[in-house]
């Protein structure tokens, strides 16, 4: 059963059984994703903070100015 078919079925069901859904359902965007069982996005760990994330955040300014941008062009 592919995603588009499921989406179609869901939207049809909403249309045909309005009593089972709230009013806003007629305007719903339906998004279908496959559940990733094997490949999960790798997490970055932050050591003793015990926090983690799928991505990190950069420093707000360049740490040193040793790269000559004019030579890069």
């Amino acid at each position, binding site marked *: 059963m592919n995603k588009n078919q499921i989406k179609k079925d869901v939207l049809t069901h909403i249309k045909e059984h309005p009593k089972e859904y709230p009013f*806003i359902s007629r305007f719903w965007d339906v998004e279908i994703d496959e559940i990733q069982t094997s490949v999960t996005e790798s997490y970055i760990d932050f050591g003793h903070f015990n926090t983690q994330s799928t991505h990190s955040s950069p420093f707000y300014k360049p740490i040193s100015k040793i790269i000559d941008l004019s030579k890069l062009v």
Partner: protein
Amino acid sequence: MRHSIIQSESDDPSTDDVLSWVYYVKKNAVVDTLFDAYPVNSIRLEMSNKENLQATINDINLDNETNYWYRRGQLVSYFDTVRNGNTYQKKMYEETILPIQEYLNGSIYKNQLNRFQDNFTNKLDMLHLAMSLHINIPDVLVTDNSDDLATFLSSHKKVITKPIKNPFIDYSTKIYNVKFLTHTKLITIDDIPKEAFSFMPSFFQKYIEKKYEIRSFYMDGVFKSMAIFSQQNEKTKTDYRNYDRQRPNRCIPYTLPKSLESKLHQLMIKLQLNSGSFDIICTPENEYYFLEVNPIGQFQWVSKNCNYYIERMIAEKITRHE
């Protein structure tokens, strides 16, 4: 035991931000983190007139002097699986584990910011309380049929509909994740089919014209507000959460009138919340309308756009008493 416990999700950026501040404002801060679905494998609680509360969760010792921040996540016990078992097991769970969990999820620490129970703040409750405190709310209709809606529409002309609880609903089958996404929809009389029909009870509110929207972070009586200019952008006009990543709405510091702050403060007391993020509309006529208060919402963008250092405020609060 004077240390800090943070209960949250391990990938919540604000938790990481606050931790940076915790380790900075309090050198050698002692922090225990209870992240995600945190498994409670052993529990000991002691209450006495002399010592007040003393407890141990797994290998973490705490007492009512412990600083506690609830941000996200939940405590789960080994016995949680039991409650889906037969009636006998279910009853056992309700009589033994549930009361302990409810207790731990409440306000038990002298210095505590939010609690798990805040997740269940009811939207209709807060609108009712706001109304009783004479805070303007957009007129509300909850109904299950299109005739009622048509009447409401004819008097208010423009109406919005949104879910009462979460902005989207997630369903999972064995293979797929199905998401229903629509935050807020503006409807007019043309959106109602001619034939009367019924639906599940749905939430409608009069659409309020906006000059700008206000997001205000509240903690212990202090308001840190930000004005959001969403009206210049068609994409964000109805609900600023329909983000435009290319040209983010202008967000600048704002000060709510003292009289409104005082009423909102009363609202928080009635809701038993010591922190939350308010969504408020300011109309072209300079009237303020309360939309909702989210006990555990996003504050990073308010903090960063307005240079408020909210993360530092939280860090200072949860390392107090050390």
